[in-house]
């Protein structure tokens, strides 16, 4: 409501009211008209119009300059406050949804990472245990080979001892029987022959 037009308008009202008072004043003096029906008693018209113009003018002024702009402002303020609060609430809700979305994404990411980390750990563990097993196996087979070689050597040595022992025994027996000692070469050849036979 433009205030300027309101005051111009109010002045117009005042002028109109003044015209009415002036008009009624001419009809006012009517002495001797006693006990008339009060609403039609013209002698009261001027006074009523005067006070009506005064009070209604005051009311119009109070309403148009103070009360109505103020109440209008209160209502507009409230409407804008409510609109702003609703906007804020909507923005906050959008933010909350965004945060929830981000959390969801992070969770999925973390889950994927956890899986790959676990896979890697499993792979590394398997590789390490494979490695260890291979080392142990190699160690064991080396020892086995060593043991086998030792056994073979011992056996060869034992066989040699048996031959030497056999030829000694053969020499001793032949000496005892014939009283003549065979040569070591003969004895060895005879033992070898016997060993070869079984």
């Amino acid at each position: 409501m433009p205030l300027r037009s309101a005051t111009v308008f109010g002045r117009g009202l005042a002028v109109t009211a003044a015209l009415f008072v002036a008009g009624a004043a001419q009809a006012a003096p009517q002495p001797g008209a006693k006990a008339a029906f009060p609403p039609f008693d013209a002698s009261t018209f001027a006074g009523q119009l005067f006070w009506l113009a005064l009070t209604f003018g005051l009311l119009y002024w109070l309403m148009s300059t103070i009360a109505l702009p103020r109440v209008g402002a209160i209502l507009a303020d409230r409407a804008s406050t409510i609109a702003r609060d609703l906007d804020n609430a909507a923005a906050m809700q959008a933010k909350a949804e965004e945060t929830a979305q981000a959390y969801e994404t992070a969770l999925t990411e973390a889950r994927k990472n956890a899986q790959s980390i676990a896979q890697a750990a499993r792979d590394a563990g398997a590789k390490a245990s494979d490695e260890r097993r291979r080392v142990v196996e190699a160690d064991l087979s080396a020892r086995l080979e060593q043991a086998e070689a030792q056994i073979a050597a011992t056996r060869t040595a034992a066989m040699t001892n048996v031959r030497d022992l056999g030829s000694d025994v053969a020499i001793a027996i032949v000496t005892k029987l014939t009283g003549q000692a065979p040569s070591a070469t003969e004895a060895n050849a005879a033992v070898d022959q016997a060993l070869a036979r079984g």
Partner: protein
Amino acid sequence: MAAGGGIDPIHQFEIKPLIGLRPFGLDLSFTNASLFMVLTVAAITAIMVYGSSQRATVPGRLQSLAEMIYEFVASTVTGVMGKDGMRFFPFVFSLFMFVLMANMLGMIPGSFTVTSHIVVTAAFAFLVIGVVLVYGIVKHGSHFFGLFVPSGVPGWLLPFMVLIEAVSFVSRPISLSLRLFGNMLAGHIALKVFGGFVVALLAGGSVFGMVIAPLPLLLAIALTALEFLVAFLQAYVFAILTCVYLNDALHPGH
């Protein structure tokens, strides 16, 4: 009607000077009518100015009342005149509230009803028509008188239509003032008459009178409720018709 006691139904409309004021031979005394005009303005000011002084976002009772009245009148104004009708909002609001509050204060027993005097209602009616004429002519010039020439009327009928429209325009302030005046006057007289019946029947002292005395009392109670409705309705009708007439000044082509 027996003139004895306080049963005279016209007595309540009498204007009694309280403070004598006679400048230039004019009787401008402060009367009981003036007192109730001042009380009317004071009551409206208490609601609208004091009630809104807190400017609370969450309103109290009085502020809620002020806001309710504001929105009620504003929706009436914009409903009849559209958005640009809000330039007349303070005028319509003041008229509506003055008439409503004067009617309501008049419902208090022993009080005076400002709007039961034809000079008051006529002043308001001519004020409304004066505003319509002045605003219409200032704003639209001769185009404003197109109001009296309905469109789409055959040429030979036009003089009659213009005559009818002119008569209807002239009769507006008369009907506007007489409607409010008549309703207030008749309602208060009827209330007083039925109230008077109760008093007369009881004062009569006869058993018959004692027995039927509650009947006019019940009627008086029902009439009181009806008068409260009329008090509001007439103020509303006055405001609505003011809006309708002002709408002619705003948008003369119809």
